[in-house]
């Protein structure tokens, strides 16, 4: 029931929005602004909370730090390693679960478990799975005559190990969302497509994919943002270290190091702000691409 905007109903709307706004401003907007300002503190006495000098020095320092470039590169490798394969895998599993199978609820629970389990517990279990001497993965690999891989301790294999863990961890959430999307597609379209002579593959390509595009779009944005924010998996899997020889040092881990271990608040905030910009940029690009391919019905 659309009505004309008046002062009265605008005020009323603001009142309704207020509770959510208070929380958002306190815990999201204010910290974002604050960390941006902290990133501008080039000379800061944190014992007395006095800023002697403002400037962009922290950003300059950041881009000269080889560890930051490495963290950025690692993060991008991580996102590329996790997001596409996670989407493809979870869509495939969701499609299987969407067919009429027995014990559907059981499988849904199984797939959702990783998502609700504590990251630390998960990482400890995976720590054992990746173990070079007693690990399950190396045991399977030995069947094919592959020598034990030092997943956790070898700088070359640390990132793949992290990627495998993260794909597995994110699967449950994606599957549930995809399943909801799939169940929203009217079965009539499949019947119509069958009558129109579409094979199973064509039905998937011409009906499922386009009608699932809003879900796909949502999942890809969420996954990419989550990928850029990866931290706790690393912390837990590598026992509070960013992998052997900084091989899994990501931007958030870098921020953590600078902030909590080295007390360089300005630098940490500058890094966080750069990450914010990168994520923002990616999301904007996705929104632009999404406009062309996503069909909302």
């Amino acid at each position: 029931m659309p009505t004309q905007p008046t002062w009265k109903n605008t005020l009323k709307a603001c009142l309704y929005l207020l509770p959510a706004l208070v929380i958002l401003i306190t815990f999201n907007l204010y910290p974002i602004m604050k960390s941006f300002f902290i990133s501008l503190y080039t000379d800061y006495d944190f014992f007395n909370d006095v800023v002697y000098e403002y400037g962009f020095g922290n950003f300059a320092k950041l881009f000269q730090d080889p560890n930051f470039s490495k963290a950025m590169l690692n993060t991008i490798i991580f996102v590329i390693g996790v997001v596409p394969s996670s989407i493809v895998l979870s869509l495939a599993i969701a499609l299987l679960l969407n067919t009429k199978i027995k014990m559907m609820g059981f499988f849904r629970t199984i797939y959702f478990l990783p998502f609700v389990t504590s990251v630390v517990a998960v990482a400890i279990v995976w720590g054992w799975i990746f173990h070079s001497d007693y690990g399950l993965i190396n045991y399977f690999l030995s069947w094919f005559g592959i020598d034990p891989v030092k997943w956790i301790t070898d700088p070359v294999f640390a990132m793949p190990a992290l990627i495998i863990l993260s794909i597995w961890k994110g699967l449950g959430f994606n599957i549930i969302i995809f399943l909801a999307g799939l169940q929203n597609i009217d079965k009539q379209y499949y019947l119509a497509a069958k009558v129109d002579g579409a094979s199973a593959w064509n039905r998937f390509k011409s009906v499922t994919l386009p009608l699932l595009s809003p879900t796909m779009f949502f999942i890809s944005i969420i996954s990419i943002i989550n990928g850029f924010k990866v931290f706790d998996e690393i912390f837990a899997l590598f026992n509070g270290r960013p992998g052997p020889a900084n091989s899994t040092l990501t931007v958030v881990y870098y921020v953590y190091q600078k902030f909590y271990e080295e007390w360089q608040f300005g630098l940490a905030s500058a890094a966080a702000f750069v990450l914010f910009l990168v994520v923002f940029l990616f999301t904007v690009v996705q929104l632009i691409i999404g406009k062309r391919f996503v069909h909302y019905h």
Partner: protein
Amino acid sequence: MDIRLNQLTMQFEEMTAVDRMTTTINNGELVSLLGPSGCGKSTTLMLLSGLYKPTSGEIFFGDKNVTRLDAEKRKIGMVFQNYALYPHLSVLKNIMFPLRMQKVPKKEARERAIEMAALVRIDHLLKRKPAQLSGGQQQRVAIARALVKKPKLLLLDEPLSNLDARLRLEMREEIRRIQQEVGITAVFVTHDQEEALSISDRVMLMNAGSIQQDSTPQQMYKKPVNEFVASFLGNPPINLMTVERMEARQYKLENSAQMVLLPERLNHERVRVGVRPEDLYLTDKDSGLLSGKVLHIETIGRDTMIRLKIGNTSVRALVDPKHQLQTGDICTLGADRDNIHYFDCDTGERVNVEKEAQGDADTADVEEYA
């Protein structure tokens, strides 16, 4: 291409939706499957389309047994109740979709789609998305999409039920026009008797999974083969009453003292008598069939409907408005002998009237369907 169903049966767990159905649909015919909900008409259509596979029995398209052939390969067109237009594709792309699946070259597919759009008169809407069309326009797109691949058989599943009354009338005539212009064999599922009777060459009235009567619309209305058919067709519904024989043609209405003089000599001691309200007329006492007290009078447009109470039964009649009737009046109703139907009390089957000396063509028809 004739379509032949042979002992077609479809069972869903405990329920038999279609029960040993055997019939033939002739090339170029528009056949309606009519019946109350749950009678198996939609299931029959799904079986014809190949979206369901029968439990037993066979389907032939011409000489070819297609019983086990998947819907993708049957080369049929189908219009769904809610049209099922692909929401992400434009009208043109929707119509082109079946051709794309057949790998028809793009240029040719486009031309054929535009040609089909012109036939159903939506060629000015090609760029729109389905959500931007009215119900009637969506309906036309659905028909174009079903016909563009030049199928041998067109199936329509309650295609008019989502339209408003005026549009329904228009689309009904449109479907008939398009069907005749293309010359395609079509099967049309509906629960609306008016729809079925008005556009079909033949109506199959179904109940509980089997065909009750399979004939031209007029025949079905005039000579129902059983009580179900008689009571399903017609609005207001046919009057049905049970009578018991007293002597010769003199019968008594069950649970009342009303005597009914039937114009025919029957072999039944008890029989169900059916007369349509429009076949009853006011008459004088001697030549009447029934008489009773007027309970209710209502005038609907050009007709006056009266309801008489006779014993425990009430009888509806559409009478000429020029009679000045009032509630409470006693009046007598008569009907022509051809318009009185008799049904067996136990089986519900039509009772064949014994041929008399002056037996005319109608009597012959009755025998054919008895």
